[in-house]
């Protein structure tokens, strides 16, 4: 596939960001809120793409890293009165440190062991909030990005402000991630994923590379968590096990090896509940159907994707092109 140069990519990201701002001005409040959710989800999915699609490790508990990031950000705001941008930095650092420790302990794990361990983490971590009173229990912590600056005018709503922040941060993070994945690190991870024995014979330090990938992925997830905390709340209920599953699903749906796919995955995840609402309405609005239909659709899509296009649409297209070229 033809890759854009860094400069061109920067211009593309910038133009896309500008487009988002213009669009955000023209749509209603709900759409702006959904836009913010899409931005946050995109970043969370990107952390999985880095981890699973590139370094070949699977994490079923990415929600736990989101929680760590969100709590770190909220705590630093509550107890140190840190400015908002600094809380985001704290979220990245703490979450990455947490990921590093875990990766160090779990460094020798692969496949199902890592999957199960991260799953246990996602189940267990949110319960800690009830154990320590400074974590705020079920109600959680207060975390906000402050009001939008006054010069934007009266009509500038809070959600639009959230969207601006989320979109801005996510675009920067995605741009940096893109460069990272195109760099030596990205190539090393791909080599690892394809064949770790061959990679180690070529001089790649397998354990170290895997730990690096896990750490960076945790940091990215932590940033996504802080943004999620800003848009919704910082409480155990915001980081259930289903959040981790949702993130994985988004990554697989859009093709786990393409960073840009993460945006597609996030859009699908936000659109599905809307579609499910319409279908549930057709089926007579029973409460059982309405609450369970979104999860059902997402899970069915997940299975179908794994069965028929496991590497995502992007990879399938590339394969077809290669076959085409051979003839």
């Amino acid at each position, binding site marked *: 596939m033809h890759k854009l140069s860094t400069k061109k990519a920067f211009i593309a990201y910038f133009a896309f960001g500008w487009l988002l701002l213009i669009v955000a001005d023209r749509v209603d409040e709900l759409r702006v809120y959904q836009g913010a959710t899409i931005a946050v989800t995109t970043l969370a999915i990107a952390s999985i793409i880095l981890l699973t699609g590139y370094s070949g490790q699977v994490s*079923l508990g990415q929600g736990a890293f989101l929680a760590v990031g969100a709590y770190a950000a909220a705590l630093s705001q509550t107890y140190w009165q840190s400015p908002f941008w600094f809380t985001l930095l704290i979220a990245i650092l703490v979450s990455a440190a947490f990921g590093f420790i875990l990766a160090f302990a779990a460094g*020798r794990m692969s*496949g199902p062991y890592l999957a199960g361990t991260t799953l246990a*983490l996602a189940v*267990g971590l949110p319960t*800690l909030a009830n*154990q320590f009173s400074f974590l705020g229990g079920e109600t959680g912590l207060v975390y906000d990005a402050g009001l939008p600056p006054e010069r934007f005018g009266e009509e500038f709503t809070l959600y639009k402000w959230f969207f601006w922040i989320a979109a801005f941060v996510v675009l920067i993070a995605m741009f940096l991630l893109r460069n990272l994945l195109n760099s030596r690190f990205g190539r090393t991870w791909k080599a690892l994923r394809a064949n770790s024995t061959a990679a180690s014979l070529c001089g790649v330090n397998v354990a170290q590379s895997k730990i690096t990938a896990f750490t960076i992925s945790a940091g990215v997830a932590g940033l996504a968590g802080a943004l999620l905390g800003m848009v919704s709340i910082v409480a155990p209920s915001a980081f259930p096990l289903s959040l981790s599953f949702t993130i994985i699903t988004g990554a697989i749906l859009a093709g786990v090896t393409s960073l840009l796919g993460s945006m597609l995955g996030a859009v699908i995840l936000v659109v599905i509940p809307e579609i499910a609402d319409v279908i549930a309405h057709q089926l007579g609005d029973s409460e059982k159907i309405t609450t*369970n239909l979104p999860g*059902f659709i997402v899970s069915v899509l*997940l299975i179908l994707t794994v069965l028929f296009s496991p590497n995502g649409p992007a990879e399938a297209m590339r394969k077809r092109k290669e076959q085409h070229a051979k003839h």
Partner: protein
Amino acid sequence: MRQLIGTLLIGLTLGSIYSLMALALVLVWRSTRVVNFAQAGQAIVTTYIAYEIVTRTGVFWLAVLFAVVAGALLGAGVEYFLMRTLFRHVDEGPVAALAPVIATLGLLGVIKSLVGMIWGNDFRSFYPPVSTDNFVLFGETIPFSRFNILVILSTTVVMIIFSFIFQRTDLGLSLRAAAFQPEIARLAGIRVGPIRTIGWVFAGVAGAIAGVLITPNDVLSPASLDVLLVFGFVAAVIGGLESLPGAVLGGVVLGIGVSFVLNYVGTTLIFPTVFVVLLLALIFKPNGLLGSKKVRSA
């Protein structure tokens, strides 16, 4: 002293149920090299079936029978329809190694949402066949009930039947051979395909019994067995993920550990403790208490 004995007894009860779930996971892992996260989903379906029968007829054993049969059928169905399709389609690419994990995860989601659509997401209580009230001995309450005795007895019986099948019958020999060396087993005339399905059937049965036994002490909801899944996995890893006796031992060790934390520390620290136990097991006993010397790679 009284509290200590109570803790041990509760630990044994919990542990025997975790053992059953761990057994289910190990059986599937040995037959197809997949950690079946959908095991909790399969078990929740069979538990709801048992729930319907208990509320309608009041006969607990009939409910267990139905749950076991349903568990066996579900296990076979999942292996035959999902896993075989999966292995036929997915053979290369970056996701190939992760595909089974993700597929079982998707299946868990499908089953849970279907169960939610049929029975709703509200909590139900599952009436036990015998009392779950604690015994009173010399005027003091011991945190142990008739139902707990029933749990321990029935899991022991299940374990004995399982180990008889695995150690003393031709079927058990084929199962072990197919798990140990599929290619050689095939050359020795074992039809590895059907044997794999049978591994899933046994796993389905073990999971179904675990679900029916843990629910009367708990509540029933589409997500109520997720925790059992995590504990079962940890127990299986403690035991080595390859070994059936290891799974049982891992379950009992974990059950007693959880019971101690419950009684002496508090409910909120259970999950962190289990997680730390899992990490310690992976760091210090990476092959499990009873696992083989083989390096863990998937």
